[in-house]
């Protein structure tokens, strides 16, 4: 929000406030340059070289990108990542909505319910992976006991990624619930009262008031979740190290291996650039959809 200041006063204060502004901004700008802007440009520059992890080598133009297009391992990693997104995005959004509705509905146990659903989100990733690994143990794990099966979930090519996805849903759904709760609380009570006077109950209240009002939140949630799922790394790295048979090796895992195991920083930077392109497109899509919805509803 711009304050209105007389033009003369503004000119005077611009002179007087330039130095204080520099002092106040200085520490942030220094950190921003060193740990964001320079590395961001460096990622791009590195992608045009065949540098190693610690040495900067020759300029090779677009060679790394050409390799990327023909790299079957990269394609597989990308496919695994999108499969993971497919397994997580919709469950995480739908469950987040359901949990928010339940928390909102049962007022007397609201605090408890919200706490139970949200707590996993504040825990370190390795707490989730340790507990998941124990529960999914082939011989003494509780999941196999309850299902009466002997499946080595995390070593089974068909089940490893879905198992990691289920752990991820448990771990992160609380955040989406929070987004939906905020959305629910923004719906004016009068809308419900008016609809109730017209005889709307239960499902029809949800279908006519709640769901349409939540559409912007739902869209935001879907796209934020899509971006978050594309960034998956820790869960699969810790639980399965990308195995069995690379069925859980995701994009960032492949980039990590390329940079830190193969010491091929140039190629890893090209992978990072491709990754950025996908994430940026989704971010722009989100901004565009939200603005479009706001304009249509106005």
């Amino acid at each position, binding site marked *: 929000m711009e304050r209105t200041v007389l033009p003369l006063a503004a000119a005077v204060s611009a002179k007087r406030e330039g130095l204080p502004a520099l002092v106040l901004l200085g520490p942030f700008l220094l950190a921003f340059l060193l740990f964001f802007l320079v590395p*961001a440009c460096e990622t791009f520059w590195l992608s045009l070289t065949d540098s190693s992890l610690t040495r900067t080598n020759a300029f090779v133009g677009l060679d790394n990108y050409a390799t990327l297009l023909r790299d079957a391992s990269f394609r597989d990693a990308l496919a695994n990542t999108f499969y993971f997104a497919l397994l997580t995005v919709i469950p995480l959004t739908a469950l987040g909505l359901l949990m928010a509705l339940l928390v909102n509905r049962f007022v007397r146990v609201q605090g408890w319910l919200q706490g139970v659903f949200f707590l996993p989100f504040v825990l370190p990733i390795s*707490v989730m992976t340790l507990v998941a690994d124990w529960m999914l143990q082939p011989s003494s794990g509780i999941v196999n006991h309850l299902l009466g099966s002997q499946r080595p979930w995390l070593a089974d090519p068909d089940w490893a990624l879905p198992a990691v996805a289920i752990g991820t849903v448990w771990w992160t759904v609380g955040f989406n619930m929070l987004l939906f709760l905020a959305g629910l609380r923004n719906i004016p009570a009068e809308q419900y009262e008016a609809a109730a006077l017209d005889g709307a109950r239960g499902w029809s209240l949800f279908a006519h008031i709640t769901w349409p009002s939540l559409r912007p939140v739902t869209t935001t949630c879907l796209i934020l979740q899509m971006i978050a799922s594309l960034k998956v790394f820790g869960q699969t790295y810790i639980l399965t190290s990308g195995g069995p048979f690379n069925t859980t090796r995701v994009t960032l895992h492949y980039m990590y291996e390329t940079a830190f195991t193969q010491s091929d920083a140039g190629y890893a930077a090209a992978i990072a650039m491709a990754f950025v392109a996908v994430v940026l497109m989704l971010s722009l899509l989100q901004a565009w959809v939200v603005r479009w919805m706001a304009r249509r509803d106005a």
Partner: protein
Amino acid sequence: MNARSSLAWTVLGAASAIVLAALWAAPLLWALSTALRPELETVSSDFHWLPQTWTLDAFAKTLAAGNLLRWLLNSALVALGVTVVTMAISLMAAYAFSQLRFRGRSLVFGLAMLAFLLPFEALLVPLFRTMHQLGLVNSYAGIVLPQVVSPVVIYVFKGFFDAIPADFREAATMDGAGPLRVLWSVYLPLSGNIVWAMAIVTFIAAWNNFLWPFIIVTSTDMMTIPLGLTQTYDAFGVRYAQLMAAALLGALPVALAYVLFQKKVTQGFLAASGLKG
């Protein structure tokens, strides 16, 4: 008809609430039940929901054998460092962006907000190279520094400062207070709530950060909890009671922070999502 269908919805809702709550509480409760057993019981073919012999043995062994206390200390130092530095530089920057007029203000602000869009993951390789050149691999500074650039915190604070009536600042400036003084004694007290909320959320995020410590730390001594807990297989072997004890001890500090500051934590996470202040 209507009353009956509304009752049906309530019953259905209550049933799903109970089932979901049970599913979401179960993993941690099962971890607790495992951690309170003697090690032999965890691999026994007899299944029991509760320990047959209750013991704190696993907790004692975990604390004695592993590097758990060291990792907890590292996490505390790192999270505290990240929080203090992030808050300090972000408050000052937000105040400048919001209240001071200088040339290039919107350009610099727009540039800073770019960091919103670009995923941190894309910077890993050059950041590691820089840290390697600076000799900061396996150091606290190396773990902390790249985590202090947080445009979302600046964005939230700037929004708050923008909404504070300019009269406050002008009155203080008339009395001869400089910008730092005005920030500290006028703007900070007026936005205490959101500052605490963002500080707690920054602390939790830094405590939980896995990716960056994973890249920059290679020595067991410098590991933080999220990283250290992934090494416990090597430290303890596959001893599930001890592994679950370690997981629960690693979860305890953040879980406590959440339980104690529930309102602030949720407010902070919502603000950080950019959706609501």
